């Protein structure tokens, strides 16, 4: 019920168009931030480790075959890792997580 009230309040008080970043700041006024940063760290870690934010599953490999799509070439994360080291991101992500 509380969520419905928040959504209605947000929609009532704002003019359209109403974008994610506006919504984000308004939601954060109502809720905790920690979950958001946990999720950010998780996604960034995936990108640093795999070069991709989404892990490919066997069922999706099969679906790609059924659709006649080529295999996905595995991303080479070597250059991303080098960039992360040069910028100091890997350290930040590890400290956060």
């Amino acid at each position, binding site marked *: 019920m509380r969520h419905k009230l928040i959504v209605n309040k947000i929609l009532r008080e704002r003019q359209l168009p109403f974008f994610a970043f506006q*919504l984000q700041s308004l939601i954060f006024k109502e*809720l905790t931030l920690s979950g958001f940063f946990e999720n950010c760290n998780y996604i960034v870690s995936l990108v640093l480790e795999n*070069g991709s934010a*989404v892990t490919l599953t066997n069922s999706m490999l099969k679906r790609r075959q059924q659709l006649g799509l080529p295999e996905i070439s595995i*991303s080479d994360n070597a*250059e991303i890792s080098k960039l992360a080291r040069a910028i100091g*991101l890997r350290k930040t992500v590890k400290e956060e997580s």
Partner: protein
Amino acid sequence: MTRKYAFFPGCMIPARFPQFEASALKVLKVLDIELEKISGWTCCPEPLSMQTLNKEMWYSVAARNISLAESEGLDILTLCNGCNDTLFEANKSLKADETLRRNVNRNLREIGRSFEGKIAVKSVLRVLYEDIGVEEIKRHVKVPLRGAKVAVHYGCHMFPELEEFDDIKHPHSLKDLVHALGAEVVSYPSEMVCCAAFARPINEDLSLEFVKKKLEDLANASAECLVVMCPYCFLQLDLGQVTISRKSSRNYNIPIVYYTQLLGLAMGFSPREMGLHYHMTKIDNFAERIATANS
């Protein structure tokens, strides 16, 4: 005239919704668009997370991806709103801001690359609307979506690019493309409201309230299906719809489709060829009605 682009499929579409990729490849081929597969792409990176943690890294990874297309001398075509937001914004900012470009190129030197600012980043929406054009799309319609009431959801991450070729307060490019297929485009009050997909991992109930609001509006507008351009919006609205139905026993049954899937149906491809059978909210009734209307 064949047009050629560097094809940037992103992470989410190839790994979660390859049916969007398959439909895009099929319809773009019909429209004489050649897509070059570039090796070495990584995540765009995703617009929210890396930018929140480290904006310099976000620019650098995006610039690296752009530099791969630059080395082929091709503009980038994206399928995902999120990828487009990142690559479009990074490309624009890096071209405009010399200091930023210098800093990012200093990072790219570590991996033997550089950003030159020589190419454009375009969404599939922009390519279809601007480079191909509504009239050319109409010319390829074999099975008009006569009598179909279709609504659109642009998605937040489309708007930075939309600002360059549409009216962001009253966008019409996607509506024009849907109308070109013979469908009636219906408007609804929350059309421009975020789907709140980003909030789902943080607070599912809150994020689903936004989905519910949109579904209520769509049902009141008698929309038979909703067209999206973004895999995250799709996930939120397709899966979210099922979750809401289970929780509340209210069944909206409004299929969510990616634009190139709908275009494919109008071009005469089957729902199966467009991968529509993989969706949680089934489009069978809608597709059958279109087929019957044209038989």
